[in-house]
């Protein structure tokens, strides 16, 4: 495993008392929290805030939790208007006062940084004005702060891209105490490059990381696996730049099921962290794949990605395919072909599936392709539907001879593998396949048996 430290955002535990939230988060194995100061979670405007802060610090120490302070509470400053006022408001005084309080609390907590965002540009305010307000506001907070401040690009806000945040920092004279909060889900939603690349671009200016999944163009915080984030690739990038801070799950709309969501999240993080680590190991020492491949199901999970995992495979299938891709970085030609063949030979059913589902990620090299074809042919002889389905992926679509490929498709119909598992069906289905399937359907009908719907689907793809 990497040295990354995983935390959880208390804004995802809004329905818990802070003490309870911290205990659940620690019990699940997180080693830090992103603490959102809010009306019922260490209210910075409370009369006894100093005393409260002291108690929270003791609690964090007792539970062994690191902490960053988050300032995204919705109605803390204005009970009528969410997030108002902001640094780009006409009168940002209350925001600046709040951020200054936050830095004092962070100092008393021993927090690693205070994270903040710009806010949405008010209507009628041009970019130049907003930029000036932002610059002045950040400067004002920096002036009194003794802790690090981390600006978070937030979709829809005035500062919504990493590049803007970095530019603002430069304009302010690159103050040491100012860095970046990166929400990796935001990268999926609005950044021009992926989260891993954003991590590399932010580099040592990365003070704080928030973890969640997202779909491109949609600012909605999702659990891992529900969006398009390459979690393992992102964690690998964090490890690669030597990110020393907390990486905390940010799911503020999941408080209703917080303990379950937090449990699933740490499982996903550990799995992705394992995979990132395994990929690194295989790239530097290819022989490591021999013992990492069998361990993949235990470490990275085995859930099917559709009803029975026949069409899209399983979590471990995809993890193993990535290990295979990592293998082709260190090995090539005959050596690569031999290693792949042995993974299949010594593999159990799941490992064999993983090899088959990763073949198209290997370089198109004579020996490697020959080996791949041999493995696909072996799998198509098996009775294991998982192997048959995995064999007919993109590699077979590209390289398998027409005769064997057609018989593979027919075997799917025979054994109940959905033809959705067959890659390139529309491109490769031909008149001969149509004839075979028509004969098969006729035979079923003559015997008074049902013809599977998928048979008609194949005929349709073949233009019949």
């Amino acid at each position, binding site marked *: 495993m990497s040295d990354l430290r995983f935390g959880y955002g208390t804004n995802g535990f809004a329905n818990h008392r802070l003490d309870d939230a911290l205990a659940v988060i620690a019990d699940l194995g997180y080693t830090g929290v992103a603490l959102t100061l809010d009306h019922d979670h260490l209210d910075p405007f409370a009369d006894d805030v100093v005393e409260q802060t002291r108690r929270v610090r003791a609690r964090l120490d007792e539970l062994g939790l690191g902490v960053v302070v988050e300032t995204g509470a919705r109605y803390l400053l204005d009970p009528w208007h969410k997030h108002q006022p902001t640094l780009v408001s006409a009168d940002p005084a209350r925001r600046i006062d709040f951020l200054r309080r936050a830095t004092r609390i962070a100092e008393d907590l021993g927090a690693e940084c205070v994270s903040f965002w710009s806010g949405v540009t008010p209507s009628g305010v041009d970019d130049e004005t907003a930029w000036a307000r932002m610059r002045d506001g950040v400067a004002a907070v920096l002036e009194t702060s003794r802790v690090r401040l981390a600006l978070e690009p937030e979709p829809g806000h005035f500062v919504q891209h990493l590049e803007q945040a970095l530019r603002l920092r430069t304009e302010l004279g690159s103050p040491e105490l100012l860095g970046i909060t990166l929400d990796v889900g935001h990268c999926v939603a609005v950044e021009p490059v992926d989260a891993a690349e954003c991590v590399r671009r932010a580099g040592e200016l990365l003070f704080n990381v928030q973890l969640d999944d997202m779909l491109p163009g949609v600012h909605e915080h999702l659990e891992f696996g529900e969006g398009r984030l390459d979690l393992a690739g992102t964690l690998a990038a964090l490890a690669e730049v030597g990110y020393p801070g907390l990486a905390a799950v940010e799911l503020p709309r999941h408080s209703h099921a917080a303990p379950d969501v937090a449990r699933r999240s740490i499982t996903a993080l550990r799995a992705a962290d394992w995979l990132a680590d395994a990929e690194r190991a295989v790239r530097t020492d290819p022989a490591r794949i021999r*013992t990492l491949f*069998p361990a993949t199901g235990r470490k990275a999970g085995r859930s099917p990605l559709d009803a029975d995992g026949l069409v899209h495979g399983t979590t471990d299938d995809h993890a193993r395919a990535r290990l295979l891709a990592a293998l082709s970085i260190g090995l090539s030609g005959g050596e690569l072909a031999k290693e792949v063949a042995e993974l299949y030979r010594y593999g*159990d059913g799941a490992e064999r599936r993983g090899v088959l589902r990763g073949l198209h990620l290997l370089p198109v090299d004579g020996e490697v392709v020959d080996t791949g074809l041999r493995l696909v042919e072996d799998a198509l002889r*098996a009775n294991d539907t998982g192997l048959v389905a995995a064999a007919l992926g993109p590699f077979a679509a590209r390289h398998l001879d027409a005769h064997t490929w057609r018989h593979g498709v027919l075997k799917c119909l025979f054994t109940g593998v959905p033809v959705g598992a067959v890659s390139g069906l529309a491109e490769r289905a031909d008149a001969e396949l149509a004839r075979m399937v028509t004969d098969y359907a006729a035979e079923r009908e003559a015997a008074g048996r049902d013809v599977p719907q998928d048979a008609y689907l194949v005929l349709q793809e073949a233009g019949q």
Partner: protein
Amino acid sequence: MRIFDPHIHMTSRTTDDYEQMYAAGVRALVEPAFWLGQPRTSVGSFTDYFDGLIGWERFRAAQFGIRHHCTIALNPKEANDPRCAEVLEVLPRYLAKDGVVAVGEVGYDSMTEAEEKAFAQQLTLAIEHELPVLVHTPHRDKLAGTKRTLDVVRESGIAPELVVVDHLNELTVGLVADAGCWMGFSIYPDTKMDEHRMVTILKEHGTQRVLVNSAADWGRSDPLKTLRTGEAMLAAGYTESDVDTVLWGNPVEFYGQSGKLMLDPLESAQPGGETFEGNSVLRGART
């Protein structure tokens, strides 16, 4: 009575045995890799066998409601054949697999140099893979063999609590107890050790660090000897809880050190139409 048989060679047994074992309370077992009753002549014969232990046999046991785990190793007897010793190179692949909960059976058979080399090498593998070790003690010259076994274990540097020394009797148990290793006893119908002698040993040495197994294989043996030992313990005044410690808690504690036990209960002990790689344990009844 809840039973975990920590050493039984199910590949050699019938489905009747599985049914009787389930009825007797067996819910989990460990099948150590060993020889075939006649010599293997190539590495391929080992790997096909290993594939069966982690594949078909695990499926077959599950069909009868029993969780099947295995240990993987080059056994002492075959360590003497250079054609077989090459299997050591592929062992790491198998030790990493699901349900492989120890390195074993390793140890001495005829106390040759080749045996000792394979033994020491496999203790190192166990340390590397963070797995417990199942050590077989020789049938001939047992006392001297056990002493030498414990020397090799000590020299390897492996933690004694990760080692079970098996097939012990009244003469060898003390050595193993003193070494801090787990004590394994194979209860057979005629030879080696029976359930009544076992109870006497328990009275002397206590129930901690003791594993009781049937070691049933293709020879004359009885897969219900674990149950018989439990019954003999009760007859001798032990409590249900003592029996549970010996027949369930201890094996779970020992093999649990692998982090790879799979003990969630199975849904059914009646084979249905399930298949392993497309094949079923049913005959004729499949639709």
